[in-house]
């Protein structure tokens, strides 16, 4: 634990915390300085996250806080999976913070601090190897998300925020019950230690452990947005300020990440009688979430709601894929997770730019006419057969919208297609590696749902896109600044990179998935005696 | 004699718990809001006494500060309630 590089592991938590705290000393007039600090920190986070991504490719990094050995002290663990999540978070954060500089960070107090604290919570949740510490970081990220969800105030946000907070407070209580029950039965909070203790549990204790884990799971799935615990999500996300909503698109993934991690760690193949506990429910829930997300996507009148329901589709897809399991499917699910999160982030930001030029009433009426009364009537004889020059702003916005639509619907050429393909290919590959073999009925259902969700998303996105970009008579061209468009473009470019570099990325994801499926290495790394740590404390007098 | 002491402490705790029962009767029944606050205040004092008896019963001074907190700061809640009843507002 001597080299400075070791401390890199905790930087994703400490840096935003310290930066957020420093910002409190700067008053609102120094907003430029605040913004600079925030952007600087976020850029640093991106760098650190990529560094950790590289490190984790070699070995699982463990950071023992306070120098205490593993099951007793809190440990931070970075393996490939965690590193991927860190990178995703930091990229999304960077895009979102740059976007916010155009106007949103002026909409209320302490935007930058709360933003950084949210990053701290997210990174902490991804890194920690301790259940209760996980609760704490969950609370940090939730607290910050409450603040950010309410950023800008206003009746819609406050109403949505009230629901969001109430539901999540109830969820946090469940979280506590679950974690403490697990502790009461096993006597430990360390995830790796827990994994070693579970196989040895007696039957009657196992029952309580499963109950505890089930309650904990519900708390996590609530945050992931599984149906029928997902109704808070569209309300909150659609009401949130757009850079906030963009960053929020990672938040459901925290729940998913933890479900994946804990499920395979605690109830993996080696966990004795509890192996794969709850898997069928997870699959059902995930598929129901996709279905509900699809319904929501189709029934959305406003783009914000559409995007929020796309979040549910994404969540459901990943959850169901995790439940189906297998290294290949999970690896693909991770790829899909990254791709869809980036796309959603871009889309949430884009929505604001797109909707800037229109008024609500006109919009609603247009939807009503177009979608309720069927197609518009048109007269073949008098079409205006000279194209309209599209202002550059609209052209760029339109291209970005198209990109988002393709990504979310899973159509080529962007990574959405690759993600869905890899997911489904891995799914079908599961039956028998390298050839024909039986594929479970549930897998067929999942395949069908994924395909249908893509089509439904496309239909809804086309409807919306046509409404916004093509039915544009009398529409004001929105004023869009470069720093607003650049983050959207950057996220979409990231998706292009994902498409082109699909091979290497996918092999990293598969390796991540493999290490999650074979947690022995994780457990060993965490529980290993610290290399040269003798109690540094108690140096005596 | 220690049995007498132990027994009397147990009885004292029962008496105090009964006192608390009376106090919550006022808290629930009222009839005035002030009655409820009064009951609440009495509940706190009785609770403090109960904490002291727990200390004696277990022979530990570690519970003393808890009782002290009630004596020193327990009234903040009741005074805020009282002021709320008085002025409709706690801080003006």
């Amino acid at each position, binding site marked *: 634990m001597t080299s400075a590089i070791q401390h890199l592991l905790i930087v994703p938590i400490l840096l935003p915390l310290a930066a957020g705290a420093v910002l409190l000393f700067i008053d609102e007039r120094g907003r430029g300085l605040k913004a600079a600090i925030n952007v600087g920190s976020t850029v640093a986070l991106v760098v650190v996250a990529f560094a950790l991504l590289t490190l984790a490719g070699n070995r699982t990094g463990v950071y023992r806080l306070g120098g205490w050995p593993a099951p007793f002290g809190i440990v931070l663990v970075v393996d490939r999976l965690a590193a991927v999540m860190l990178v995703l978070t930091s990229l999304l954060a960077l895009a979102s913070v740059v976007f916010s500089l155009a106007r949103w960070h002026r909409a209320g107090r302490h935007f930058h601090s709360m933003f950084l604290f949210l990053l701290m919570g997210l990174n902490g949740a991804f890194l920690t190897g301790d259940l209760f510490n996980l609760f704490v970081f969950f609370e940090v990220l939730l607290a910050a998300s409450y603040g950010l969800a309410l950023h800008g105030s206003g009746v819609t946000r406050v109403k949505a925020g009230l629901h969001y907070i109430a539901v999540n407070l109830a969820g946090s209580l469940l979280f506590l019950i679950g974690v403490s029950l697990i502790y009461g039965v096993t006597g430990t909070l360390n995830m790796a230690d827990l994994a070693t203790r579970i196989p040895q549990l007696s039957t009657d204790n196992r029952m309580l452990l499963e109950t505890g884990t089930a309650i904990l799971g519900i708390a996590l799935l609530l945050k992931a947005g599984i149906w029928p615990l997902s109704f808070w999500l569209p309300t909150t996300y659609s009401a949130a300020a757009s850079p906030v909503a963009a960053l929020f698109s990672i938040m459901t993934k925290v729940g998913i990440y933890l479900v994946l991690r804990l499920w395979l760690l605690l109830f993996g193949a080696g966990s004795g009688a509890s192996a794969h506990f709850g898997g069928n429910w997870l699959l059902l829930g995930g598929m129901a979430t996709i279905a509900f997300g699809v319904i929501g996507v189709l029934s959305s009148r406003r783009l914000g709601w559409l995007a929020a329901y796309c979040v549910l589709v994404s969540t459901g897809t990943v959850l169901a894929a995790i439940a189906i399991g297998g290294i290949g499917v999970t690896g693909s699910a991770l790829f899909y997770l990254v791709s869809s999160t980036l796309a959603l982030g871009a889309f949430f930001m884009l929505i604001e730019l797109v909707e800037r030029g229109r008024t609500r009433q006109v919009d609603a009426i247009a939807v009503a006419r177009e979608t309720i009364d069927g197609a518009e009537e048109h007269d073949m004889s008098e079409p205006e057969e000279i194209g309209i020059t599209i202002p550059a702003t609209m052209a760029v916005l339109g291209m970005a919208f198209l990109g988002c639509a393709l990504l979310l619907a899973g159509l080529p050429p962007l990574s959405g297609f690759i993600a869905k393909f890899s997911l489904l290919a891995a799914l079908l590959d599961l039956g028998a590696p390298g050839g024909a073999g039986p594929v479970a009925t549930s897998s067929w259902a999942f395949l069908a749902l994924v395909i249908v969700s893509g089509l439904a998303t496309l239909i809804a996105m086309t409807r919306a896109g046509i409404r916004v970009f093509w039915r544009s008579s009398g529409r004001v061209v929105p004023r869009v600044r470069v720093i607003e468009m650049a983050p959207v473009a950057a996220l979409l470019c990231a998706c292009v990179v994902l498409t082109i570099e699909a091979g290497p990325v996918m092999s990293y994801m598969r390796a991540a998935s493999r290490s999650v499926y074979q947690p022995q290495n994780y457990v060993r790394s965490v529980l290993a005696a610290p290399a040269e740590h003798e109690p540094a404390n108690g140096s005596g007098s | 004699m220690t049995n*007498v*002491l132990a027994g009397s*402490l147990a009885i004292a705790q029962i008496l105090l718990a009964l006192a608390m*029962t*009376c106090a919550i009767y006022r808290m629930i029944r009222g009839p005035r809001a002030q009655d409820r606050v009064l009951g609440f205040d009495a509940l706190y004092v009785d609770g403090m006494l109960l904490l002291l008896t727990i200390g004696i019963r277990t022979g530990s001074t570690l519970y003393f500060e808890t009782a002290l907190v009630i004596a020193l700061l327990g009234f903040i809640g009741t005074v805020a309630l009282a002021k709320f009843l008085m002025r409709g507002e706690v801080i003006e």
Partner: protein
Amino acid sequence: MNAAASLPPWLALLIAALVLLGAGLALTGALGLLRFKSFYERVHAPTLGATLGTGCILIASMIYFSVLGSRPVVHEILIAVFLTITTPATLMLLVRAALFRDRAERRVATAPDGEDK
């Protein structure tokens, strides 16, 4: 309670008596809270527990721990002091508010003694 075995019997009896007296006073006060008919009377009742009741138990505690710890334990005084200082603040505001309302609603003239609704 193991340590209590080292107490002299008379001290044990004294402590027991003090504790019982204190708790009894507190209960009496609480009963008053139950039995008095008007609010203004009820306010008097808990004072029993808050003054002498507390005092008895505090003294019992002081004796007990002083004897056991074989050094004077007197920090219980603080409880008595703080309780004495803080109780009036609450009660005065409570009674004041009640009186004001009663006067406003003409339930009492200057010397109110009516029943609550």
